[in-house]
């Protein structure tokens, strides 16, 4: 039996309160290893910025899932992997569960970074030494003393017939924006400055900044990456560009909304729903799709609809609405699944 299915069965055991310590230990170890894999694959050296090792972050992330209540149960874990979710994945493909698990772990990892954000203490002295060493070795940057300060200059080689635009000390913010735009987060110092030089060359920019300012820019770029950008590209085995994925996803959701709109319009024409109900279904579907992106459906379809139609009763829902909503949900799920499959096989 493949690894993910085994994990699923162990989760089922925990939900049913039918497990032994060994099962629990195996599950915890598997989750720690999954998170460590995610951290190590994406983090690079930027974790040196924090007073926490990747291992600490992984253990902390997992330990928050295994907080016990008075009955010895794990409320957080059981909320994320409730019976309904586990049952659904038991009959689904292993890839689907793998994707869900990674999504959940990634979300928890991101939360851990968020909780630790006030404690991130960059090892500035160490990073500064490394920046100095890199810049001294580099032929693209120049170091010169200006009184007490150590100035770093970069002059683009290709002049394009025009003098380059010069970024000075008071424009450090602009350089930070360039670093973020160029995706320099998560890079080790030598690679960071190599890529920065390429970016400056491309933008025809000259810099003249102190070493301290460059240090701050490096740290801020890594912090930003650590806190905000560690997410999206983990969703899939293949390392696909995150920006492409988000762009595509927005497009698919808009397309899906249009499809659902057309379907609901047909229901109105056939007098199966009232015209004013169309928007209610669309809003409920929007919420559901949002949940799919954020770890999965966590409540009943009735609850989604009830949010926008509080007066609806369970009986009325069962008799008149359920069939329609379930059909729309099934269609939407298949639509997104097909789009994702097609994108991944590109």
């Amino acid at each position, binding site marked *: 039996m493949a690894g993910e299915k085994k994990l699923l069965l162990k989760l089922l055991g925990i939900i049913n309160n039918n497990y032994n*310590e060994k099962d629990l230990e195996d599950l915890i170890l598997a989750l720690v290893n999954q998170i460590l894999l995610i951290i190590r694959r994406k983090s690079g050296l930027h974790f040196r910025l924090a007073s926490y090792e990747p291992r600490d972050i992984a253990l902390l992330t997992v330990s928050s899932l295994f*907080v016990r209540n008075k009955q010895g149960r794990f409320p957080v874990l059981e909320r994320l992997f409730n019976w309904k979710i586990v049952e659904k994945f038991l009959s689904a493909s292993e890839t689907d569960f793998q994707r869900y698990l990674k999504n959940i772990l990634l979300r928890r990892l991101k939360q851990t970074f968020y909780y630790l954000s006030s404690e991130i203490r960059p090892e500035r002295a160490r990073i500064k030494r490394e920046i100095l060493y890199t810049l001294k070795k580099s032929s693209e940057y120049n170091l010169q003393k200006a009184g007490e300060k150590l100035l770093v200059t970069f002059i683009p080689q290709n002049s394009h017939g025009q003098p380059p635009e010069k970024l000075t000390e008071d424009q450090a913010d602009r350089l930070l924006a360039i670093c973020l735009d160029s995706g320099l987060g998560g890079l080790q110092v030598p690679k960071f400055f190599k890529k920065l030089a390429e970016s400056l060359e491309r933008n025809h920019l000259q810099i003249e900044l102190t070493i301290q300012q460059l240090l701050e820019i490096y740290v801020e770029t890594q912090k930003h990456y650590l806190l905000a950008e560690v997410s999206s590209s983990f969703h899939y085995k293949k390392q696909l560009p995150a920006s492409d994925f988000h762009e595509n996803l927005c497009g698919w959701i808009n397309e899906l909304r249009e499809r659902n709109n057309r379907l609901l319009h047909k229901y109105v024409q056939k007098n199966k729903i009232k015209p004013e109900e169309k928007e209610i279904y669309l809003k409920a579907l929007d919420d559901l799709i949002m949940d799919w992106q954020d770890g999965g459906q966590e409540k009943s379809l009735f609850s989604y609809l009830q949010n926008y139609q509080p007066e609806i009763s369970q009986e009325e829902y069962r008799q008149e609405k359920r069939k329609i909503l379930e059909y729309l949900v099934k269609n939407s799920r298949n639509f997104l699944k097909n789009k994702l499959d097609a994108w991944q096989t590109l």
Partner: protein
Amino acid sequence: MGKNFKTLEKKDILHFCNSLSHSVNFKNRINLYLRKSQSSPFPHLLGFEGLPSFEFYAEKVTLSSSDESYLLRILRDNIKGDLEAHLLHPEKEKYQYVFVCLDNLHRDYLTDAHGRVYLGQIDLDLSQIKASLCPPSAIFDLDPATSPLSVTLRPRYATGDFEGIELRVEFFSGEKSRILKVQATNLPDNVEIKKIALVINELEILVAVPQKGLAIFEPPENSEVFQINLYE
């Protein structure tokens, strides 16, 4: 060197997994010994005030600490066949929310505000029983309604090395309720916090195994006042 580090890291991870899945080896452990004295004819006077009358129960075994300050009585509910334990001590900090470790089962249980713990239908040879206790080493009170987003707490109760300890509590907004980040500061070098308990009310207690003295709790919605206990 690299291999040694990897082995060490693997060992640490395994130790962590073990601490989450098995009972913890508390440093502040008080061993209990079987008391051979005649059992009390009135167990309800010691442990069952306000509960069904004692004839439903039969006192099975009594254990005490070496100085006899702690008394643990394990009783069987003759109707259901369940076991219950009652911890007695003159000070409430030493019977409320205390870990009772049943060494034969490799499990630990947390007493409630009355020193009571429900053991259920466990396979326990009472003649061979080995038990120990781990009372809280420090207790902190927190009122989320009046606390700012980040607050440093001094202990209401602390023993030995925990007297100078402080607890930094930060609140974050979660999906359904506020999330609590709890971190012990000023920890002496030789002290390791093995467990942190967040007591929300009589029914809701959350127990975390901290990592680097830090634990993250997701208490239920509208929780009012918390008590935070540290165990060594």
